[in-house]
């Protein structure tokens, strides 16, 4: 067999390639961070939204639902639930859980205060206004 194949060269190419592409990722990350203000709806990141996000996290909502397509796939997408259902429906729905219908998927009741419910709605409204490149394809998420 003609040609050469040395371990030292393979190693150098690995280090060179890995560093190169990692730097590229870092550069793109910088550009993304610079561009985010245009798409991430940070203007509406109110105290209420932040409280809502905290509630979202501490109730492990992501364990059943998806948010912008990420999470579990057991329950509906909530990134666009605000335009889909509206604030009042969302609050009423959360309060009425679990349905207790035999054999159906159940959502726990979290005994939220009215303030907490408003915070969750604020968070979901903020999320729905993030520019997601028109995802999901339709209102059903």
């Amino acid at each position, binding site marked *: *067999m*003609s*040609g*050469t*194949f*040395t371990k030292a*060269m*393979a190693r150098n*190419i690995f280090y*060179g*390639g890995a560093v*190169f592409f990692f*730097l*590229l990722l870092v550069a793109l990350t910088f*550009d993304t961070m610079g*561009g985010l203000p*245009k798409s991430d709806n940070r203007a509406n990141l109110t105290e209420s939204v932040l409280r809502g996000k905290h509630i979202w996290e501490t109730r492990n909502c992501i364990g059943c639902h998806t948010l912008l397509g990420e999470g579990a796939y057991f329950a509906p997408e909530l990134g666009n639930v605000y335009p889909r259902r509206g604030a009042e429906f969302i609050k009423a729905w959360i309060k009425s859980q679990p349905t207790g219908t035999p054999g159906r998927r159940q959502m726990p009741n979290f005994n939220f205060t009215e303030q907490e419910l408003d915070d969750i709605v604020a968070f979901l409204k903020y999320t729905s206004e993030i520019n997601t490149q028109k995802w999901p394809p339709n209102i059903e998420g």
Partner: protein
Amino acid sequence: MNTCAQTLVSPPALPAVASDSPARRLPGDLAIWFFILAELLAFGAFFIAYAFARANNVELFNEQQLALDRNAGALNTILLLTSSYFVVRAVQAAEAGQGRRAATWIAGGFACGAGFIVVKLFEYTAKFAAGVSLSSSTFHMFYLVLTFFHFMHVILGLVILAALWNGARKGRYSPGNMNGIETGAAYWHMVDLVWLILFPLVYVMR
């Protein structure tokens, strides 16, 4: 599976082809050729993506392409080609046993590559001043991603050339020891090769 695997791991010695050469030989290190293939695939995918994105938006692409600096693009093509030529001469010098002379040729190649960087930086400065960014339009996104991705490759190539220059000055390359210089040269030519498609595609094709 088997034959395929065999090919990848050790390309079968091909039957002697009736030609001037007694044994076909892949110049440089096999590892760099795998890297080059991966890079060519990545660039190829970008080129094809560009072409099809353009097909869906011909007017925008044509209009914004006109604003590009074709003179800078052509000058850079010439710089890269000349740089490649110098590197070929360096490899030939090493092959002829004039290892140290190779250093001079590589220095020439490096200078041309550095010239490419300078021209490109002027081009980028003008573009950024004009408000071109990754998010300003699909065409600009492609223009920046393609040229910047390539730009980074030129920089990496220059680092490699600097290493080769250093090696050549120390007389490291000789007819019996061509692996290093051939490997670096192959990478540098790949950077050139990719630009040869990038230039007509992004700067000229309408």
